């Protein structure tokens, strides 16, 4: 973590305690997760007790305290997607990536997560990759999907 990058966030956002949510969002965007030193700095700078910062970081699903991969795969396991076969998709993805939901692959390429309904039940089962919705998924489409993301990743990180 490069602490210098944090300064603009803390300076631009001012120093009022109520700005903590915006600061946390910016930190999440900057590093892809919430590093402990950054949260300690935010807590001191805004005058919000560390436990409150920790509580917020734990409360919202949009925040992560662990480093996340460059690509986020979210499998919807809401009721509709569940009955349309989401558990099967999840199993397949877990086996292919060798991680459980909430975990990140060793090469830091993928983070796998589940969500309980995205409000797009008619499209189910739904998988979201980096914010893009892939509808009516079935296990046979997974290899293609992962390959698309991997090729995009190779452009992002050529040496990987």
């Amino acid at each position, binding site marked *: 973590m490069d602490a210098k990058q944090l300064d603009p966030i803390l300076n631009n956002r001012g120093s009022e305690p109520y700005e903590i949510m915006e600061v946390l969002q910016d930190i999440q965007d900057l590093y892809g997760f919430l590093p402990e030193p950054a949260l300690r700095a935010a807590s001191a700078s805004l005058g919000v007790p560390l*436990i*409150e910062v920790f509580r917020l970081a734990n409360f919202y699903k949009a925040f992560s305290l662990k480093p996340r991969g460059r690509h986020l795969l979210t499998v919807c396991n809401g009721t509709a997607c569940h009955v349309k076969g989401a558990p099967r998709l999840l199993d397949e993805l877990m086996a292919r990536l060798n991680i459980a939901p909430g975990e990140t692959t060793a090469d830091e390429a993928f983070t796998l997560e589940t969500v309980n309904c995205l409000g797009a039940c008619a499209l189910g089962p739904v998988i979201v990759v980096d914010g893009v919705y892939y509808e009516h998924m079935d296990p046979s489409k997974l290899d293609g999907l992962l390959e698309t993301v991997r090729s995009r990743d190779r452009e992002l990180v050529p040496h990987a």
Partner: protein
Amino acid sequence: MPRMVTITVDGARILTPEGSNVLEAALEAGICIPNLCHVPGVTPLGACRVCVVEIIENGRRRLTASCTLEARDGMVIEAHSENVMRARRNIVELLLAEAPNSRAIQDLAARVGVTECRYPMRNNTCVLCGRCVRVCDEIWQSKSLGLVGRGPSRRVALPFDVRPDLCKRCNNCIQVCPMTITPCPGPLTEPAICARCESQTSMVENIPDTCVMCELGRGFQCARWQLKGLDARA
């Protein structure tokens, strides 16, 4: 002098300062409303629901926690109706299933007359009453602890799970915790209802509605003992 309001609890008219909560008003007047998460002098949280009562408004009855219920003039409360007793037993039964290893919870079960537990016993180490958190925050002005996470992953935690510099090492969080009182004749070999306090349990049938400053209440750190300024610890 704060303005006084009159409320009726189980038919008794009670004069209490405006802004006080119904639980404390009743306890001050000697009416027993079993309670667990409430600590006098600290903001009520309403986490355990043990202090459940019925409030009667316009002929309608509604169950609610009494510690978070502000006394208003003319309020009518039933603390020992059939409905309330049933709800309270059920609530305590759930607590007992969570933490049969706590003397406080076992005592509470004895006081409200829980004789069987229909839920699987879990032996948890925390019932999420939030006493520790509020005492740390409000009495010690320390904000070292918090209730972290949502739903089943809710827990009491220190920031990043390490003791922060803010912590004054007063140990008050541990003193007010109902989980720190182990059952009397040593821990039960397997989770069960202990109900060994027979001298005390007879009071459940005979005097359910009057606070008798029971030893059980002392065990579960009932707010009445604290209001009296007595050592709440057994």
